[in-house]
Every structure is written in structure tokens, then in C-alpha cells.
């Protein structure tokens, strides 16, 4: 019974949220339709342009246009590879730090020092070191996005209850099995929090990296449009970016609520 009440409440909250968004769109539309400013096209025009630009090839053409493969796909590729590297390195290093105090003591100060560097600052250095190719952009994303995953994993692993570990030890479970079936599940909610933060950081770094020496991608398209005074496409790129952020968050939430179902339910029970 209580679950249906919760479901109803949730539906209501979602409905209210969408109404708010819709209202904002209407206000935006009305305000821009009245003004003659060239800098602010109406949202309808923007979405029209966005659809025309990237999704107008029809069903037979596979819907997405050739421009989509120049403007959007390269960015998605860079973001995905960069984040995967960041997550892999961050989780591995975080577990190492959390499990071996000696490693933590030696490496932690250096890591805090490195973390203090804002990612975009390294752009000039990355340009010189790895050139202007995809590697440069991917490594910039990976470097900037690794920190929240690393530090969240580190602290979550350190806080795994001693009882879980002793249970595994008295059951004579191997170290590998303990890592994958005790430590990582116990730390998973903390790790996921880090993954979410790292994803939004990754998007920022993606765009920053595409502002210099790029020939494709959302960031490149955005600056090109702005420099050639094509304001409508510029807005399309901005909206595409916010859509990218929104969709990536949606995907992560989906995965998270699947993996951490037990955690959500447990929290609900204990409230």
C-alpha cells in the first residue's frame, strides 16, 4: 500500500516538474517572439533548426544527417572514452588507496595537489605534449574527470564496515572475490556519486578542449557559428549541449537505480 502512495507521489512530482519546464518554454517563446533582437531567436526556431540540422534525413536515410556525424558524434566519442578512462583509473586507484594505508600516505598529498589544478589550465600543456588530435581531448577529459571518482571511491572503500571484511575473512573467501563481491558492492553508492560528478566535469572539459585547434565536435561548431555570426545555429549547439548533459544524467540514473536498487530500498526501509 505504501509503495503505491509513493509511486503516486513520484508521478505527481514528475508531472509538476514537466509543467514547470513547459511554462519556462512558453515564457521564453513569448518573450523572444516579441523582441526584434537578433541575438535571441525563439525556441521554436531553435528546435526547428536543430531538427533540420541533425535529424532530417528521414527514416530511409537513418534519420540523422551527415552533419550529425561531424558535429555531435566526435564529441560523444571523446566524452565516452575520456570518462571510461577516468572511471577505470579512478576506481582502481581509489580502491588501492582505500585498502593499502601505506599507498594512501605516500600518494594522497600529491593527489590533492594535482586535483587543485583546474582541468582547462592544462590545455596549453596538453596541446604541446599530445598535439591536437583526439588523444589530447580524451586525456584532458580523463585527467579532469578522474578526481571525483578517485576520491569518492577512496573514502567509500575506507568506510566499508569492518564486519563485512571479517565475515569474508572468516569464510576464507579469496582476496579477488572479496574485492568484487564485498568491497565494491559496499562502496558502490559512493562510487556512483563520484561518477555523476565526473560526467558533468567531463562535458565541460570536452567543450573546452574543442574550443582550440579542433575541426569538428559541438564545441567547434559552437565557436564557428558564433564567429560567423550565425546566431540560430549557435543556439542549436547550446541546446544540443544541454541535451547531452541531460541525457547522460538520465542514462546514469537508469544504471544507478538498477545497480543500487537494494540501497534505495534499504534507505526507504530505515527512514
Amino acid at each position: 500500500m505504501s509503495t503505491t502512495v509513493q509511486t503516486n507521489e513520484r508521478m505527481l512530482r514528475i508531472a509538476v516538474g514537466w509543467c514547470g519546464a513547459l511554462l519556462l518554454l512558453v515564457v521564453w517563446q513569448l518573450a523572444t517572439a516579441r523582441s526584434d533582437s537578433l541575438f535571441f531567436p525563439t525556441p521554436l526556431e531553435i528546435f526547428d533548426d536543430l531538427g533540420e540540422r541533425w535529424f532530417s534525413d528521414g527514416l530511409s536515410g537513418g534519420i540523422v544527417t551527415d552533419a550529425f556525424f561531424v558535429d555531435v558524434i566526435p564529441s560523444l566519442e571523446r566524452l565516452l572514452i575520456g570518462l571510461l578512462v577516468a572511471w577505470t583509473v579512478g576506481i582502481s586507484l581509489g580502491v588501492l588507496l582505500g585498502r593499502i594505508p601505506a599507498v594512501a600516505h605516500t600518494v594522497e598529498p600529491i593527489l590533492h595537489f594535482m586535483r587543485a589544478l583546474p582541468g582547462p589550465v592544462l590545455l596549453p600543456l596538453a596541446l604541446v605534449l599530445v598535439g591536437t588530435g583526439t588523444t589530447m581531448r580524451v586525456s584532458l577529459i580523463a585527467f579532469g574527470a578522474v578526481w571525483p571518482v578517485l576520491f569518492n571511491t577512496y573514502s567509500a572503500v575506507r568506510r566499508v564496515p569492518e564486519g563485512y571484511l571479517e565475515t569474508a575473512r572468516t569464510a576464507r573467501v579469496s582476496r579477488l572475490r572479496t574485492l568484487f563481491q564485498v568491497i565494491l558492492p559496499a562502496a558502490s553508492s559512493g562510487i556512483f556519486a563520484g561518477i555523476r560528478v565526473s560526467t558533468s566535469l567531463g562535458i565541460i572539459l570536452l567543450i573546452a578542449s574543442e574550443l582550440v585547434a579542433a575541426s569538428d565536435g559541438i564545441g567547434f561548431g559552437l565557436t564557428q557559428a558564433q564567429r560567423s555570426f550565425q546566431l540560430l545555429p549557435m543556439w542549436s549547439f547550446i541546446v544540443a549541449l544541454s541535451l547531452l548533459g541531460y541525457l547522460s544524467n538520465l542514462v546514469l540514473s537508469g544504471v544507478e537505480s538498477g545497480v543500487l536498487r537494494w540501497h534505495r530500498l534499504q534507505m526507504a526501509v530505515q527512514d
Partner: protein
Amino acid sequence: MSTTLLEVDDLRHTYRTRQGDQTVLDGINFDVQRGEFVSIVGPSGCGKTTLLRTLSGLLRPTGGTVTLSGNVITGVPKGLAMVFQDYRASLFPWRRVGANVEFPLLGRVSKAERRARTVESLKAVGLADAADKYAWQLSGGMQQRVAIARALAMRPELLLMDEPFASVDAQTRSDLEDLLLRVREQFDMTILFVTHDVDESVYLSTRVLSLSKAPTVKTADVPVPLAFPRDQINTREDPSFVETRSEVARLIRQASPGGLAAAASVH
């Protein structure tokens, strides 16, 4: 034909702290025969937990030896299972009850055998229907029964229990005590049971060991002359229960000189 399962020989442990060395176990000796139910009681802070941790191989003692089935323990030995006091920190919240019980068997016995043992163990603790629930959906007493089922699934020769019933209410506690005696019979286990409750130690055991305050030594080794099966009402009325209970209580009081009880008894 009793044979020795566990031998504890001059067991010592000293923790090194910033305030200097702190000796917790100061030469403890005892044996446990196969089939016995031995309880260990003592005043709080007597190093009971340290003792259990060394017996289970979780902690390496600074002196003396522990021998299980003729082998000196250097790490966590085979044939041993442990039930902790805090079931919340020992059952995994992301695994369902059945998966928790099965956990120690992973990679060790076949899937069919794992399933069979899980079902059998859960049935033995009366939780056959709870296999697909999460542990945190159950009451405290039921969670501790899951922890017991997990220990049973390991088919241990020696079951170590660290104040397992200390965090449940009185009624649940006596239910759990009787459940433990039943499964002991069914699974033919030797049990070493740590508790601070004198009544409980006498009710459950075939023998009670009492420990002194730290630095801890064994102060008494009291056999319990009560037959099985035991009964929460009749056994506790039995004159030899009352007598043994008093004897153990007296030994514990003597073991903690300067305590409140001792101060009150000085005229």
C-alpha cells in the same frame, strides 16, 4: 570417546598503544573436546573479543598457540565458522537472504550443493520462506538466524559465537537459545560461545569458563551437570542450574576485585 578439537596453550596478546603496552591476554590455557558446548564468561573488558579473534585466526596472538584439529592456527583455519554480535555489519545488504547464506560456499562447492545446503540451513533456522528477501527487511532476531544459517551452511567443526544474542530482546533471545541447541544437535557441532550473561552461559553449555579482568587469565572451569534437551522453564528451576549459576557468578565477582559488587559487600 571424546577427542580434542581445540587446544589453547599459554595464549598471550599485548596491544602496542601510544600509552605503552597493554596486555589483554596473559597466558590462557584450555581445551575443547568434540561435541562440547563451551561458554566463556567474564566481566566487561576482559578480552573476550580479543580471545575469539585470536581463536578465529583474525588476529595473530603475540604469544602462545591455538591448535584446531591438530593443526596450529596461523591464519583463518578450515572448518571454522563465526557468528558476530552485530548482524547488521555482517550480513551483506545487497545480497538476498539465500545469497548471503550461500556466500561462504562460492567457488568452493558445486552450484547444486550450494543450493541444497542453503535450503537446508535456512530450514533449520525456520527461515525457509525468507530466502528471496533482503536481510534488512527482517527483524533483528531473524537477521541473527540468517547469520546462524550462513555459519551452518559452512558445515563447521567448530562454531565460534561472539555475544550473538546481545542485541535482541529477551523473548527473542530465549527463542534463539533454544534454536541454537536444536541446530547443534542436528548438525553435530562443537560450539564456543562468548557471552556476558551468566544465566545464558549455564543454560546453553556443557562447560563454562570464566575469565578475569585484563590482563586476562582463566579463573575457573565449571562443568554444567544438566541433561539435554533443556527447557527454558524447567531447566532454569533445576537446583543444579541454580547452584552452577551461583558458582559462576561468584567466580566472576572474585575475578573483578574493586568492582561495584565487591565494594558493596565490604562491611
